[in-house]
């Protein structure tokens, strides 16, 4: 107990040096917590954007379509017949169904031409699954049968288009002949997904099906599920398809988001490196502190040995001091981290200077918002204390093993 009292009291010695070590540890903790928050925020936003604006929770496609889906073929589509409709009925946790026809198109404004991703949708059902409609900044969503379309704000600016302008989409039909879809711009969206803003044109599903000559077929059926039902709904759907001998398969959004998930995995490795650097800073700070303290207190160590203190008792004095520095540094770091993360969750972090994040495979626009990851706070604090404890052992042992005679008379 007295060793603890002495160790804690020693924290008041060499205030400036202790304060520097505390602040270095605190800054390292702060930087890690901020980075962790931004990275997790980026991941969360990416996943939300993918689920809410790109894929839904589950995508149902023809088994042969999946591998080639990036090329947007018009082969191996899903024919919306009674068997398919029945397979989707009465599934617990399923909250929205949106058939989509995806196709390659060239957007023509009469002067310029731009390759785009065309999306034939049923607007009412589409809104059950996706939140795109919430991002309309001008005009309205169209209805089925209307020769109208919706496109992203960035694309509209690029092609100098506005509401009520007419555009032509040049498409290839299933039979590989050219056709066009002429629509009036009904609405312009500015969402948090860069691909929606700059690369997609939405048109009514029936208009697209007619133009592409695919009858009542769609590329995929996007499904929205209630939280926690993704796995069970996917399983039920696949069982239903098997039962009806349909060559369809349900895929989780995660399988569509391989790039973002790969980035997320890389991010975790990156955070691991940052964590290693943070701990290294802590270790060096603590070792430096204990070694300097031991050098300054050589005579005191000699006196302790003369009084009959055992090596481990002297070690414990230095360890208490080191742990004290670790705890104070960790607490200040966590406090600063909490303030930083609080600001990040409220005001976000502007990434527009870095250009279009979609180019890096990150479906986020302009701002990343941090998220609270309380486990990172606990984990880092506890790890910091443990590291302080272990990094002090060797220099403390070195101090405690000094020859008592040399220590007492070292001057």
């Amino acid at each position, binding site marked *: 107990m007295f060793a603890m009292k002495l160790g804690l009291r*020693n924290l008041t010695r060499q205030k400036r040096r202790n304060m520097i070590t505390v602040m270095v540890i605190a800054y390292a903790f702060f930087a890690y917590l901020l980075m962790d928050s931004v990275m997790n925020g980026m991941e969360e936003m990416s996943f939300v954007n993918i689920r809410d604006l790109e894929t839904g929770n589950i995508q149902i496609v023809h088994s042969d379509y999946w591998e080639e889906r990036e090329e947007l073929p018009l082969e191996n589509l899903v024919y919306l017949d009674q068997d398919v409709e029945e397979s989707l009925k009465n599934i617990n946790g399923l909250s929205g169904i949106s058939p989509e026809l995806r196709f390659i198109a060239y957007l023509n404004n009469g002067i310029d031409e731009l390759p785009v991703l065309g999306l034939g949708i049923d607007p009412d059902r589409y809104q059950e699954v996706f939140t795109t409609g919430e991002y309309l900044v001008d005009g309205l969503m169209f209805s089925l049968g209307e020769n109208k379309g919706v496109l992203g704000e960035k694309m509209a600016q690029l092609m100098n288009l506005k509401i009520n302008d007419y555009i032509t989409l040049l498409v290839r039909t299933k039979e590989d002949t050219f056709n066009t879809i002429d629509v009036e711009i009904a609405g312009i969206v500015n969402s948090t997904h860069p691909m929606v803003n700059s690369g997609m044109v939405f048109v009514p599903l029936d208009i697209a099906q007619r133009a592409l000559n695919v009858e009542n077929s769609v590329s995929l059926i996007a499904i929205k599920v209630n939280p926690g039902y993704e796995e069970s709904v996917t399983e039920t759907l696949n069982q239903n398809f098997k039962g009806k001998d349909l060559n369809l398969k349900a895929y989780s959004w995660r399988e569509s988001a391989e790039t973002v998930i790969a980035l997320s995995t890389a991010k975790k490795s990156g955070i691991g490196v940052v964590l290693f650097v943070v701990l290294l800073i802590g270790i060096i700070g603590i070792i430096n502190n204990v070694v300097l303290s031991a050098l300054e207190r050589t005579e005191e160590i000699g006196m302790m040995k003369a009084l009959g203190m055992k*090596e481990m008792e002297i070690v414990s004095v230095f360890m208490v001091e080191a742990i004290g520095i670790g705890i104070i540094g960790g607490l200040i770091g966590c406090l600063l981290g909490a303030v930083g993360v609080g600001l990040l969750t409220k005001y976000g972090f502007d990434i527009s200077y870095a250009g279009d994040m979609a180019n890096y495979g990150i479906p986020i626009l302009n701002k990343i918002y941090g998220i609270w990851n309380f486990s990172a706070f606990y984990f880092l604090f506890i790890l910091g204390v443990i590291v302080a404890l272990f990094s002090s052992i060797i220099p403390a042992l070195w101090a405690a093993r000094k020859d008592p005679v040399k220590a007492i008379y070292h001057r």
Partner: protein
Amino acid sequence: MALLELNKVKKIYQQGKIEVPALRGIDLAVEQGEFTTIFGPSGSGKTTLLNMIGCLDIPSEGEVKLNGDEVSKLSQTELAMVRRYNIGFVFQAYNLIPVLTAYENVEFAIRLINHSKKAQIKDKVLKMLEEVGLKGLENRRPNELSGGEKQRVAVARALVKEPKIVLADEPTANLDSETGAEVIKIMVKMNQELGTTFIFSTHDPLIMKYAKRLLNLKDGMISGDERR
């Protein structure tokens, strides 16, 4: 049986390839309650002899017995235990812990051997501080005390655990003669009241004046042993 016995104790330091003998075969017996002074010129081996007696160092040859038990072949941990329970030290430079008060510096020594209730320890520490004339200064830190007061704290720290022997290496060297005399008088009083054995190394004629036994050390050997 003598409290302390040294038989043919030699201590040789290795400086590179050269062997430097500090003690050349000391035979000494000290009885309980003696007030002994070791004097001699610088380099005569006073401090080395004190270190052997205090179990801070072990001899190159010969044996050191405390209460009849040989201590010169014990491990470092065992020596630490011998020091903890049997020996008190007073250093020239006081060696107090600056972040502890006078009370806590004394308490520190007794806490190592005594696990009694806090109140009992407190009584003992306060009584010892009163004995050395520090009543009212218990809560001062070393930087708030004069040299003499610091040395009194060191004396209280050495005595509070009631050791068999108190070793003092030039305890008055950093004090003026008046303060030095006060500190020595306290030690004489403790020697008489508690029967504690004191062994000093010193150049100070004042301490020699109070000593009951004078050991003259020269070139690592006892050249004179005078009892008064």
